[in-house]
């Protein structure tokens, strides 16, 4: 009988049993043994594993100090040297899911196999699945705690012991941008005709490859009068002031920035840089107005063809962007714009 695997578990303060308004701000802590859902996790691990320590943090605290928290957790993991790292499950809680994803990624980087669990639509799932993390698919709420932890425990043991894993469907994790060849024993042409006949008859069938589909966004009604409208410029082109003061990354951005453009008639070459890693920025550096057309929009403003342009430019980098990160950023920017009375957005994309 092999030694029980040494498991470190991450949970947020809410699941750690702390309530009240301030729980999201709970400081990062490390405690011996299992806490909260970690106790059920330990039961489900039976004698295959033991929760030797629990790392707990408020979701707000984590999100505001992500890098500092990560550094501390790396330290804990280096000291504890667990066989496996388990985080969550986060269900549909966005900040918790992002934290779980990030910490699992850091654990993997330290050579520690990691498992987490969250609902398919958690922003953490979309952001971290392409990093090939193992994310067990869970229900939307803690009602699904037991089955989530059951699958997380089973997967954690397999990973901890280096046992071969089944497919995503078999083990219960979300597609993690890794595909594996299988022998179906049936020629593709036969499978194709079988599949389309099922589709034709209205029977259920399973596509061998599926890609995300996107929600339908109902189009806003047209502007009644552009001359009375406040416009804003939002871009994913990564056009930033020289020096990139807000450190936008070249790809997979998860934050955005805004830059004052009040009093500017145009964007001046030399004052701006294009940090988006997906397009050749030569033309943009020669004349940034080719990407963000401030000069032309100012002309329309002067001519009274549009009401006014809001005096900040909103920027992120769309290169290899995670869908859910972009959704979140779009919602954050839109919320700000609505508050300011902005009625229309022009979004240059590269």
């Amino acid at each position, binding site marked *: 009988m092999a030694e029980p695997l040494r498991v470190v578990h991450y949970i947020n303060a809410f699941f750690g049993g702390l309530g009240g308004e301030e729980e999201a701000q709970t400081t990062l802590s490390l405690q011996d043994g299992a806490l909260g859902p970690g106790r059920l996790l330990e039961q489900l691990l039976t004698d295959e594993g033991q929760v030797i320590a629990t790392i707990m943090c408020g979701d707000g605290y984590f999100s505001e100090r992500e890098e500092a928290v990560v550094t501390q957790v790396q330290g804990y993991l280096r000291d504890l040297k667990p066989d496996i790292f388990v985080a969550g499950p986060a269900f549909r809680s966005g900040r918790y899911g992002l934290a779980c994803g990030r910490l699992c990624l850091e654990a993997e980087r330290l050579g520690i196999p990691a498992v987490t669990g969250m609902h398919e639509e958690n922003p953490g799932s979309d952001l971290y699945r392409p990093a090939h993390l193992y994310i067990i698919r869970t229900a939307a709420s803690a009602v699904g705690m037991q089955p989530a932890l059951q699958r997380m425990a089973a997967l954690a043991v397999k990973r901890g012991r280096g046992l071969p894993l089944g497919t995503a469907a078999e083990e219960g994790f979300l597609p993690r941008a890794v595909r594996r060849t299988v022998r179906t024993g049936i020629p593709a042409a036969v499978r194709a005709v079988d599949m389309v006949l099922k589709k034709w008859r209205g029977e259920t069938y399973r596509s061998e490859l599926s890609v995300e589909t996107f929600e*339908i966004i109902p189009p806003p009604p*047209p502007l009644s009068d552009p001359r009375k409208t406040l416009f804003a410029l939002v871009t994913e082109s990564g056009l930033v002031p020289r020096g990139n003061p807000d450190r936008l990354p070249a790809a997979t951005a998860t934050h955005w920035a805004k830059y004052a453009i009040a009093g500017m008639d145009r964007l001046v070459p030399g004052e701006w840089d294009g940090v988006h890693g997906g397009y050749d920025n030569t033309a943009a550096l020669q004349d940034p107005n080719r990407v963000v057309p401030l000069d032309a929009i100012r002309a329309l403003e002067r001519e009274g063809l549009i009401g006014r342009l809001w005096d900040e430019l909103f920027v992120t980098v769309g290169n290899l962007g995670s869908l859910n990160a972009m959704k979140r950023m779009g919602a954050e920017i839109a919320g700000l714009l609505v508050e300011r009375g902005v009625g229309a957005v022009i979004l240059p994309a590269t």
Partner: protein
Amino acid sequence: MLATCLYTVATRVGANRIVRGGKFHHPFGNPDLPPREEYAFRYAFVQQTIRALCTPVQQPTVFDVETSVVA
């Protein structure tokens, strides 16, 4: 209103008003043109974006700079 070259991705994601102009390295530019013509192109493009914002649409719709509604 989204200004882009690769509009099939844009329509797929669900952007409703899309104006298509220059190459994706410079959606509002055309470095092959002399500066005055290029600015004229940009000005026309921006005007088209305003027009798109004033046009009712039912679903992702692509507007070209040169012509009217494409798809």
